[in-house]
């Protein structure tokens, strides 16, 4: 299903669409306030972050090896997975070989990408997503709609109904404080009974061999401090060279994501806790291939802050589920087609080219430029609809023949705006639905020029 088709379903409920739009825009404004409070340093930080990521990406294999060496020296085990299937197999083997049946997991888009939950559940392992938003969507059997705010598409009374049905809380609850309390009490025994904790990795420090996990709820820490086994899953692009680089990224991450100066918890793990085990799974799953494509490789700098989706007018008004992908929004529309161009071919077109995403990206990925580059790739590969191909062919024909261009632009001028609109509505109905023609000058430049040149 295409983005436009899914988005049409979302926008059909105009009131809800506007509510979603406003909710995300509020997060964008919080980001602006936080960025503003850092003053002139903000742009310097962005430039630094981009430079650190570019340098790291160029020397990625060396930094990955350095990270592995130092992690192992601290007593962690490091595993490598070339794809999602390998990742799932490694995680399952670690759990099964230790007789683990109860797992808690904090937010990891990588595990979402690999489909870890269904893989483990099919093998009899209970896996509970402990981030509140993730738990909500897990109970609803749906994917998250935002990488930082998984349940942003839901209203409080819907969550109240969900908790009533599935957690036995009183009917009609809708106060966020009360609902959060319900979730707290529901998840607490699950933390205390978990035999393993799976987390993502925000940053992997090559210099020290440590992994850093950032949360607001403390769910990653509650899980990892109680369960004897900690499995940390990371993409190869998460590695950064020095501990000092954390200063740059941590100053950017939470401000870009939610407008906070820093997340409540920023945990640094160097080897296992006493009596425990730490296993780090390093995953490729298409990332090395993306690094080999100069037009798109800088997308690997992404620190998963979500700022691009908060600002994107298309995301705000179509919702994360319209993208049909693990990661939605502008960055998702670049990463996902790289993974599966045919399946995600409509995503780079779900873009107004406003460039707002590029403005807010903390690591300065030229997002809208890459979306445009994707369009070129998809057209070249023939992966666009026949109507789009027909229109592009027609445009090529008209624009390369001056006499035809003159004719085509003459017609609307003679018909006048009202008739032109009617004509377009007949000939290109979906284009005309939300677009209007520009004001038409009474005479073309060519005509005016000729007139003035005559003595």
């Amino acid at each position: 299903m295409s983005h436009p088709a899914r988005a049409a379903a979302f926008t059909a409920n105009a009131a809800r669409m506007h509510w979603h739009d406003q909710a995300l825009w509020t997060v964008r404004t919080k980001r602006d306030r936080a960025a503003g409070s850092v003053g002139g340093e903000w742009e310097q930080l962005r430039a630094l972050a981009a430079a650190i990521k570019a340098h790291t990406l160029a020397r990625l294999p060396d930094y990955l090896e350095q990270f592995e060496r130092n992690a192992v020296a601290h007593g962690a085990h490091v595993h490598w997975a070339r794809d999602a299937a390998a990742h799932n197999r490694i995680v399952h083997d670690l759990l099964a070989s230790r007789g683990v049946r109860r797992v808690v997991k904090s937010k990891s888009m990588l595990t979402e990408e690999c489909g870890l939950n269904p893989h483990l559940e099919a093998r009899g392992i209970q896996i509970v997503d402990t981030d509140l938003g993730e738990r909500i969507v897990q109970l609803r059997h749906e994917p998250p709609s935002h990488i930082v705010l998984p349940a942003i598409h839901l209203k409080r009374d819907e969550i109240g109904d969900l908790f009533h049905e599935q957690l036995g809380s009183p009917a009609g609850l809708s106060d966020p404080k009360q609902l959060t309390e319900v979730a707290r009490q529901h998840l607490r025994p699950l933390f205390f009974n978990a035999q393993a904790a799976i987390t993502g990795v925000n940053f992997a420090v090559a210099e020290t061999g440590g992994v850093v996990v950032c949360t607001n709820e403390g769910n990653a820490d509650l899980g990892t401090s109680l369960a004897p086994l900690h499995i940390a899953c990371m993409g190869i692009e998460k590695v950064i060279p020095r501990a000092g680089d954390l200063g740059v990224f941590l100053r950017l991450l939470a401000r870009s994501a939610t407008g906070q100066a820093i997340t409540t918890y920023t945990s640094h793990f160097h080897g296992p806790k006493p009596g425990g085990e730490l296993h780090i799974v390093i995953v490729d799953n298409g990332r090395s291939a993306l690094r080999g494509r100069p037009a798109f490789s800088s997308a690997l700098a992404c620190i998963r802050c979500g700022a691009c989706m908060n600002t994107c007018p298309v995301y705000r008004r179509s919702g994360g589920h319209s993208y049909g992908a693990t990661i939605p929004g502008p960055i998702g529309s670049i990463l996902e087609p790289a993974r599966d161009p045919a399946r995600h071919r409509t995503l780079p077109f779900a873009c107004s080219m406003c460039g707002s995403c590029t403005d807010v990206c903390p690591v300065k990925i030229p997002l809208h430029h890459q979306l445009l580059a994707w369009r070129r790739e998809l057209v070249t590969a023939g992966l666009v609809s026949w109507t789009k191909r027909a229109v592009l062919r027609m445009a090529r024909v008209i624009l390369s023949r001056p006499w035809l261009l003159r004719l085509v632009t003459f017609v609307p001028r003679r018909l006048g705006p009202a008739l032109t609109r009617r004509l377009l509505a007949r000939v290109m109905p979906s284009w005309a639905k939300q677009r209007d023609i520009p004001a038409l000058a009474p005479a073309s430049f060519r005509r005016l020029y000729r007139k003035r040149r005559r003595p």
Partner: protein
Amino acid sequence: MNRRDRNSILGALRAQTVDQSPLPDLPAVSETAPAAFQQALHAAGGQLASVTHPDDAVDALAHLCQVTGATRIASLVAGLPGAREGITIVDSAGDPHHLGDIDLAIVPGRFAVVENGAVWISGLDLRQQALCFACEHLVLVVPGDQLVPDMHAAYRRRRIDDAAFGVFISGPSKTADIEQALVLGAHGPRSLTVLLLGAPPPCTLAG
């Protein structure tokens, strides 16, 4: 180790030619007034208690216990909370699964960061990591002369890998996952108090 996948991934990366670029120097530390710490901590939902004299710390904690109704307390800071009627001191060593009913935990912080209200807790000072996260209310005791301006200063200050665990904690556990409404006390502590100990209200910044 999964050598085959490891070699395949590293091999694929090494086979690519990517433009090299230099690793930039880290930025200079910013100038931030120490008084901004309180503002940053409040913005993160935390509370600040500044005491000059260690005895005042005992009083501040007594007040906090009263306000929160805390009776079961675990402390990793010598001399605190001080003996008092009505409270039980819980030993936090041993199996972390017994930490499930601690009302208030008192934990030492090494230093605090002015720009974001965060306190660095080193695993070297914790017997159980879980103590910081499983309690209902958390108190972080920080020497008043150990404030650094920003995260750049924080990472210059000490190696992060001197312990298996270390954490920056800024404010109480929180979430805004339900309609963007901020709620304090998600899964971790419902409140966080930073007790700045042994110095007048902060006016110097530690190097």
